[in-house]
């Protein structure tokens, strides 16, 4: 359940909200098809027009990764997406942004490279608006692709009672699933959306 540890977004520096609304909508649709520049793979492996749905390259073996600074410099300021959502999977809540991955509990019926739609969206927030679900934002959906069905790191379960000659040692690896978030949709028609107004904050 490791979420991204980078800051979710920089504080918005733009003060005008109305004029930036159409550009935010446009960049919203563009951000979904932007290549995932921050991904730690060699640049030659990435397809230049990264289609959000089909993953052509094999995910098994990663190539030699470029240094992170070079990738961040290449990514530029457009790294942060304009939308994020809070989604509930397996009774845990995650903050998701398109282009990043999350580790969840093992989804039993899913195979690798399956498209998944997550329906329990509790909050969707863009740069201008926040759609707070009560409890769920209706008709909102988060699209994800199953990347890998693996296991967590091993934990050693060691039980011990002193002076009673009782000890048990057990190793445990919890199965997990890695999901790559490809897009967040369906939140525009939600009625209750308090408009974020940085000028009045």
């Amino acid at each position, binding site marked *: 359940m490791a*979420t991204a540890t980078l*800051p*979710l*977004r920089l*504080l*918005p520096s733009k003060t005008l909200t109305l004029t930036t609304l159409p550009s935010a909508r446009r960049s919203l649709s563009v951000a979904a098809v932007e290549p995932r520049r921050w991904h730690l793979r060699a640049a030659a492996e990435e397809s230049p027009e990264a289609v959000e749905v089909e993953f052509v390259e094999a995910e098994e073996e990663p190539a030699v990764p470029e240094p992170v600074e070079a990738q961040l410099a290449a990514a530029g300021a457009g790294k942060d997406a304009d939308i*994020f959502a*809070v989604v*509930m999977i397996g009774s845990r*809540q*995650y*903050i998701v942004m398109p282009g990043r991955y999350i580790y969840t509990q093992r989804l039993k019926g899913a195979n690798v490279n399956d498209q998944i739609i997550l329906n329990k969206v*509790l*909050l969707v*927030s863009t740069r201008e608006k*926040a759609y*707070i*679900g*009560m*409890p769920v934002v209706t008709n909102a959906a988060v699209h994800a692709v199953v990347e890998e069905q693996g296991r967590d790191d091993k*934990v*050693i*379960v*060691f*039980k*011990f009672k*002193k*002076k009673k*000659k009782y*000890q048990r*040692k057990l190793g445990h690896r919890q199965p997990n699933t890695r999901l790559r978030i490809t897009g967040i949709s369906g939140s525009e028609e939600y009625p209750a959306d*308090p408009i*974020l107004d*940085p000028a009045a*904050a």
Partner: protein
Amino acid sequence: MDYMEGGKLFRRSSNWKMNKGKIFKLAKGFRGRAKNCIRIARERVEKALQYSYRDRHNKKRDMRSLWIERINSGTRLHGVNYGKFMHGLMKENIQLNRKVLSELSMHEPYSFKALVDVSRTSFPGNRPVKKEGLAAIL
């Protein structure tokens, strides 16, 4: 070594080897002789494994109280304290958990303020936001 006492770690195996390598691998980073000498390392590794079992349960409690602290400080910036904030959210049937709320209060201040406003309209039991400085005079 004697294997009569079965209470020590890794001595229950029937062969004579006492898995020293495994113990020293788990004892990396320990202080002083506990990483080098088998008699001391074995006890310390035992203790370390017990602590890790116990603390895996404690971590969940500690993290929850940390999230509550962060939400509290985040909402008090807006003039609402934690208890009334959560009561307002529960009344509105918003089911965001404390982990997510603490992350929002740290990294998404505008979304968090929207949540605080929702809670305040739903349960107005808090002092009004004080205007400071020049706004108080106007």
